[in-house]
């Protein structure tokens, strides 16, 4: 087994692990119970996708996927901000929707 093969195998393994991580994150997302829990889970999932980008960049030897990571790092933050704002306002309204 050459180092290259090892790398490929570990990338595959890592991808599967990240995939499982996302799936587990999804469980939290689905279970909630509070809005913050869901947002946390969503945030974790996006971060995991950044990881996927990195791993894919390795697998395909292509920098292109790193660009996705950069963009994603920026915008996932935006969605967290928006959802947090939402959560906070909802909490102030003591609106029991979620």
């Amino acid at each position, binding site marked *: 087994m050459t180092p290259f093969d090892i790398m490929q195998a570990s990338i595959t393994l890592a991808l599967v692990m990240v995939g499982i991580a996302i799936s587990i994150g999804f469980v939290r997302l689905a279970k909630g119970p509070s809005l913050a829990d869901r947002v946390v889970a969503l945030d974790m999932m996006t971060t995991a996708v950044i990881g996927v980008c990195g791993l894919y960049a390795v*697998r*395909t030897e*292509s920098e*292109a*996927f790193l660009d996705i990571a950069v963009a994603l790092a920026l915008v996932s933050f935006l969605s967290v901000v928006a959802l947090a704002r939402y959560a906070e306002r909802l909490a102030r309204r003591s609106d029991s929707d979620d």
Partner: protein
Amino acid sequence: METLVACLAGFLVSMAIWLMLSGNLMRFLFGLLLLSNGVNLAILAAGRLTPGAPPLLGASGALPPDTMANALPQALLLTAIVIGFGLFAFALALTIRAYRSFGHLEVDRMRSAEPAEDRR
């Protein structure tokens, strides 16, 4: 690989239709997003899936040795995604306005435009 994506696309479409039929405008919006995603997947699959190699040329336009992913459906997809976003945005604004106008989002109870039949 296409098979899985095809099934996923079909599944998304089913879910989307179910949501769209629910009679609530907000859920219609959710359905719309799902439907767009489903159709996007369909287009992607229709362009055939080539794992890996993004359609980028090497320096000086060198073609990589392996087949690259099909660039054309990707361009179409990009267009479709952005258009879908525009439509979603409008629909969202309309939903807010409808809620302000009617005080609810039950589409079946929005009946100010029709029906009004001949009274004779």
